[in-house]
């Protein structure tokens, strides 16, 4: 199968973005694919929970993430997510329409080596979490446009990486702040909360409220942490349960 599309230099950024046909590319349908939440990885057979783990440090590189809408149940849902190396100049026929954005990924992240090993392109079936967050972000993007706010691609990148590395996490509420950052909030009916403002450039502003039953008081903390350390911060605050309910 082949298609004619210009992929080089695409950066976007709006779900209305369309791709102008330009380059004839050869697509090999058997090269990559997906089923359930385990993508078909022709060479090494990794699964999402392995591939999307977070690294501890390193230099960053760009990946293009392609969001293909039009799931069978609801056309606004995601049907596929493709991760493409920035040098990958072909667009698979399965993801010919939809929205894309570039995310900054650390060089030593498992996703980077997986994408490289797969020839520059991997396609996943989205998790429920990814689908829910994507839909919410689509709504927020429209509201941000109304308010003349430009949302931060770097904030989105960090939020997306965070939830993608944790497929079992419960769906957070997500909000669009005046400064262009996305904020994800997990909370319960007891007033406990974990609120993470993805500030871009791999930093997170956090507010954590956790009720300590041994002293009968809500413990409250706030600060800034690196995205690679925020999970440890949440764990240290005894607030992991808020993300997994």
């Amino acid at each position, binding site marked *: 199968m082949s298609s004619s599309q210009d992929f080089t230099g695409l950066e976007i950024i709006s779900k209305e973005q369309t791709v102008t046909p330009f380059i004839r590319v050869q697509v090999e349908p058997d090269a990559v694919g997906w089923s359930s939440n385990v993508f078909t990885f022709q060479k090494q057979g990794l699964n999402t929970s392995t591939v999307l783990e977070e690294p501890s440090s390193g230099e960053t590189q760009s990946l293009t993430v392609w969001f293909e809408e039009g799931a069978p149940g609801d056309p606004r849902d995601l049907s596929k997510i493709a991760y493409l190396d920035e040098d990958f100049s072909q667009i698979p026929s399965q993801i010919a329409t939809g929205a894309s954005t570039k995310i900054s990924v650390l060089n030593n992240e498992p996703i980077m080596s997986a994408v490289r090993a797969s020839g520059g392109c991997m396609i996943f079936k989205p998790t429920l979490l990814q689908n829910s967050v994507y839909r919410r972000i689509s709504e927020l993007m429209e509201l941000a446009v109304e308010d003349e706010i430009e949302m931060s691609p770097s904030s989105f990148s960090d939020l997306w990486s965070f939830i993608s590395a944790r497929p079992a996490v419960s769906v957070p509420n997500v909000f669009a702040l005046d400064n262009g950052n996305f904020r994800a909030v997990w909370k319960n009916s007891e007033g406990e909360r974990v609120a993470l403002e993805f500030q871009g450039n791999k930093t997170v502003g956090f507010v954590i409220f956790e009720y300590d039953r041994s002293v009968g008081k809500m413990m*409250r903390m706030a600060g800034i942490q690196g995205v690679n350390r925020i999970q440890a911060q949440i764990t240290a605050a005894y607030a992991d349960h808020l993300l997994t309910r």
Partner: protein
Amino acid sequence: MNGDSIPDSDHVLRHVKGRFVQEEDIDGGGFRLREGERELSFNWMEYYRNRTPDEQLELIRKTFPLKLNKKDRFAKLNVGSTKSRVSSEHPEKKVIDFIEDGYQEVPSHCLMTGDPDVYEMLADILLECILEKFPAIP
């Protein structure tokens, strides 16, 4: 008179943009300073002291200076209990006050005063003080 504290028994409304509303939940982002704000803006319901709460809300809607959208909300807080909760629950024991700041077009305008909150925890504590939420556009 502008600068005077609003009585503890009174109530204020905070306009919250639709970006900070998801179903019934409001985010602390709606209680952060907006661009150009030095102190958090509210509207004092009992400025219209002889009106019912519904009439007070409607008068505030009518005089509100920003464009209101369908998904926006007004969050209602009691002045005294909010001040008390912030000072007791914020780790830095922050002291806030609500003061009159009305002007001709928006006579009910008031401000929340207090020291800046570097990590924005105060905004999330204010969420715990919300008594009711109203659509910005009925």
